[in-house]
């Protein structure tokens, strides 16, 4: 496959930004409330068809909370007719057995339920809603109905110590997959970074627990431990590179290379209501903006790793340095790496900061 004609493999369909939870690390943009649900059932089904035509084989139905869309069953049936592998990424709220059974009959392949911690008070505190017990019930329903279950837990300084208990909980739910994903510090998580960023020691202990469990559970439960890039030497290959593997479509119909791309200045993103996905993928200025290497500054441009990490995350570069084309500051070679060193030092401070919950009120205007 040549880099001139990259093939998307995954469509991330953000069906709505609405969500009953108010998680303090939500990856939706701070101005989420200004992005209304603008796509009809027919629009989404066309987007799925166009994506499949481009080569997409994986569909993530996400949000916000995708269960809020009452046409979810129709969307799942449409995805199944296209033979897409369809994964519902849900908080489990609001969900009923009847609804899950219909989604199962419609051909949904996998259900991912997020929990925030292993006990109700801690989990509900992060979610900003009493939801923990119901989430466990939904996870059990998912298995009862014969779905494979992914349990997702976002990790941060308040729950990292409980990784062994989280693994035990996932085992007791008979999860097929456990995603232990350290917080990515964008969106609401960047706002709450002082309260969430762990120390290196916390991380190392959690990672060791996860590694041991992964060996023990090999073949029965897949265990994923995603390190936070703040403690890596080099950046992650964000989205496997800009416009290389992923298409994200936002609730208002923006086609994006990643779920936060519309927070970058100076890029005009096309709407799927106005242009075909094929045209957008191949020809839009925004998808082409950070493809290849021509846009790269030094030290990326002459770096041996430039084809492995693509210079890191554009959104992180912009939100930390103010320049979207900067080398991702998490890179130890980045001119702005001191920003990350400062954040790490802050993380060693004992006093926790107050949490700011996701709310429409505190959303900045678009």
């Amino acid at each position, binding site marked *: 496959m040549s880099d001139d004609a990259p093939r998307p493999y995954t469509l991330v369909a953000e069906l709505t930004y609405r969500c009953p939870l108010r998680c303090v690390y939500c990856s939706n943009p701070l101005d989420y409330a200004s992005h209304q649900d603008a796509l009809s059932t027919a629009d989404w089904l066309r987007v799925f068809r166009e994506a499949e035509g481009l080569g997409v084989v994986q569909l993530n139905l996400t949000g916000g909370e995708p269960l809020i869309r009452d046409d979810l069953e129709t969307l799942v049936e449409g995805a199944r007719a296209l033979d897409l592998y369809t994964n519902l990424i849900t908080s489990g709220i609001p969900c009923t057995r009847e609804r899950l059974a219909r989604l199962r009959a419609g051909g949904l392949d996998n259900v991912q339920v997020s929990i925030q911690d292993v006990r109700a008070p801690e989990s509900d505190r992060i979610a900003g809603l009493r939801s923990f017990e119901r989430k466990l019930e939904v996870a059990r329903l998912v298995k009862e109905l014969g779905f494979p279950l992914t349990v997702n837990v976002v990790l941060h300084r308040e729950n990292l110590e409980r990784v062994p208990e989280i693994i035990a909980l996932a085992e007791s739910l008979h999860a097929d997959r456990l995603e232990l994903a350290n917080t990515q510090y964008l969106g609401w998580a960047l706002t709450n970074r002082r309260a969430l960023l762990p120390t290196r020691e916390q991380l190392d202990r959690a990672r060791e627990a996860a590694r041991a469990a992964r060996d023990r559970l090999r*073949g029965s439960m897949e265990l994923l431990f995603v390190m936070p890039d703040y403690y890596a030497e080099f950046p992650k290959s964000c989205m496997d590179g800009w416009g290389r593997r992923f298409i994200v479509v936002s609730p208002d119909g923006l086609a994006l290379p990643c779920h936060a791309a519309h927070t970058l200045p100076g890029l005009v993103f096309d709407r799927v209501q106005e242009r075909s996905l094929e045209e957008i993928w191949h020809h839009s200025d925004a998808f082409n903006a950070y493809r290849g290497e021509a846009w790269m500054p030094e030290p990326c441009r002459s770096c041996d790793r430039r084809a492995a990490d693509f210079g890191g995350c554009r959104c992180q570069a912009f939100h930390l340095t103010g320049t979207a084309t900067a080398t991702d500051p998490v890179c130890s070679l980045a001119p702005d790496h001191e920003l990350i060193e400062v954040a790490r030092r802050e993380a060693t401070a004992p006093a926790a900061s107050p949490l700011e919950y996701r709310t429409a009120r505190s959303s900045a205007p678009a």
Partner: protein
Amino acid sequence: MPEAGSRLAADARPRLAPKVRLRWDRKDGRYMLLYPERGLVLNGTAAQVVKLCTGEHTVAAIVARLAEQYADQPADAIEREVLTFLHAMVDRGLIRSEP
């Protein structure tokens, strides 16, 4: 950790794990295994093995079937290739052999 081989006896009947689906990739003319957030491209032999992982056929039967199809190649090489692939898939949780 047990030896991979001990988890897949000759009379085991492997099948795809519940989270895994086999899909023909018409874009590039090949089979893929799809599972949450991942995909695995299969070569011709691997695809034939996966198609037989329905829970009906034993490992021995799968090996025999493949050896038949590739009669121009040494049977022990085919057997090694099939077993190595199956063990790797069991290790990755993509194929299961329990009843």
